[in-house]
């Protein structure tokens, strides 16, 4: 009983610390790419900047706009944050450190992260604002469309390893990491593109495009509720990286260093790659994004599945 409680608390603590670290990392990475310095004054090279941001957000006035659908509007941040936290249950941090090794781990993660769409749609509808509604609808359409290639590429990994449990997939990569097999490398590329779209990051960040319709679905949120959207986005980014590490890069396996260190290194490396992508590429238009998902990614993922499945069965 105590063990379960300790596990829960440590996971929550890790999430909070990780979100703060990611906010700092994003600002420093963007600054270095743009030849500037980033936060320097708060703490050593700005490391206490996220603490300052959190305090500022806590102290902000919580404005309830007029005419909102109160229950929908109030519940929306929770519907976005809680599923992301729930997905941490099955992430294998190392061979012994996994909160709960479900034998349907992959299915669990995919179904739980789909609940985020509901939260975004509630945020868009509940705020009494046509910009938010437009942003919410665009975001919902985008996330639902990109779930199909995501699941198809994850399915290939499950087929290759024969099990849906996360630890099982890591163990199936003992001889050779999945990224080094050609059909799985293609699945990895599809997974990266689809996961970036799931997380609303550039080049798929139309829902929060600042240069078009103000701020999208989280326009009407201030203070701690806005902070919850923010934390949910960065934690989602970490979840995606953690899943990519487990499914394609061999999880916590590696020589010399303990498993936990390897896992964190690989996950944060993938997060760095996502940030690098944000500061390099322009953003796609809505209809281009949709046609890319349905007319390009999904057929390729299906073909990949078909051909590798045929090879596996032969």
């Amino acid at each position, binding site marked *: 009983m105590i063990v379960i409680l300790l596990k829960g608390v440590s996971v929550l603590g890790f999430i909070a610390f990780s979100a703060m670290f990611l906010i700092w990392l994003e600002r420093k990475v963007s600054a270095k790419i743009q*030849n*500037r310095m980033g936060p320097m004054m708060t703490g050593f090279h700005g490391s206490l900047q996220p603490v300052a941001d959190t305090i500022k957000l806590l102290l902000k006035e919580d404005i309830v706009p007029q005419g909102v659908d109160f229950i929908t509007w109030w519940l929306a941040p929770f519907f976005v944050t809680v599923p992301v936290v729930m997905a941490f249950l099955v992430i294998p941090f190392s061979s012994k450190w996994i909160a709960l090794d479900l034998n349907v781990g992959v299915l669990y993660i995919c179904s739980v992260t789909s609940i985020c769409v509901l939260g975004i749609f509630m945020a868009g509808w509940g705020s009494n604002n046509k910009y938010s509604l437009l942003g919410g609808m665009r975001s919902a359409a985008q996330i639902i469309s990109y779930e199909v290639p995501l699941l198809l590429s994850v399915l290939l990994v499950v087929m290759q390893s024969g099990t849906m449990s996360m630890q099982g997939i890591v163990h199936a990569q003992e001889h050779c990491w999945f990224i080094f097999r050609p059909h799985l490398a293609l699945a990895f590329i599809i997974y990266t593109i689809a996961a970036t779209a799931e997380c609303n990051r550039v080049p798929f960040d139309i829902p929060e495009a600042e240069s078009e319709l103000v701020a999208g679905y989280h326009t009407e949120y201030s203070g701690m509720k806005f902070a919850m959207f923010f934390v949910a986005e960065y934690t989602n980014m970490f979840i995606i990286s953690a899943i990519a590490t487990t499914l394609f890069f061999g999880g916590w396996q590696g020589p010399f260093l303990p498993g936990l260190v390897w896992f964190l290194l690989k996950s944060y490396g993938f997060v760095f790659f996502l940030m*690098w992508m944000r*500061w390099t*590429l322009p953003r796609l238009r809505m209809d281009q994004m949709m046609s890319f998902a349905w007319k390009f990614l999904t057929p390729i993922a299906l073909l990949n599945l078909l051909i590798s499945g045929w090879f596996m069965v032969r």
Partner: protein
Amino acid sequence: MGAYSIFKGFKVTFKNYFKKSVTLHYPIVKKPMTDRFRGMVDLKPPDCVICYQCIKICPTAALDLGHKVLEDNKTKNITKFTFNAELCCFCGLCEEICPTDAIFLNKMYEVSYFDHKDLLNIDLMSDHKYKNVDGGTS
């Protein structure tokens, strides 16, 4: 192929990741201004010959000068010489036209005031009109 262009973009940002920062860590490190930098309007009162050229050429009427003639009908003294920093457009025409280089533009660029009224009538005759004339390095 299209995807290759994305990789070239990545290469550019990756190269720039390792370059030195072009910004300075202000306010710990400050850059000195150039020789001809046009800051706030300043005056060396002994050099002024009260020719009124700067008043006539200022495009926005930011300078205000008054003088009186003493009993010997020869020497003139300045009664007031004020500068309205709100109207000034920092063009430097007064500095260019002054025949004795009495009025000039100093190197002050940190020009924030707490009260709006402090800006309207800066007395150019006083010695303590500006706080950080050398651009804050002193």
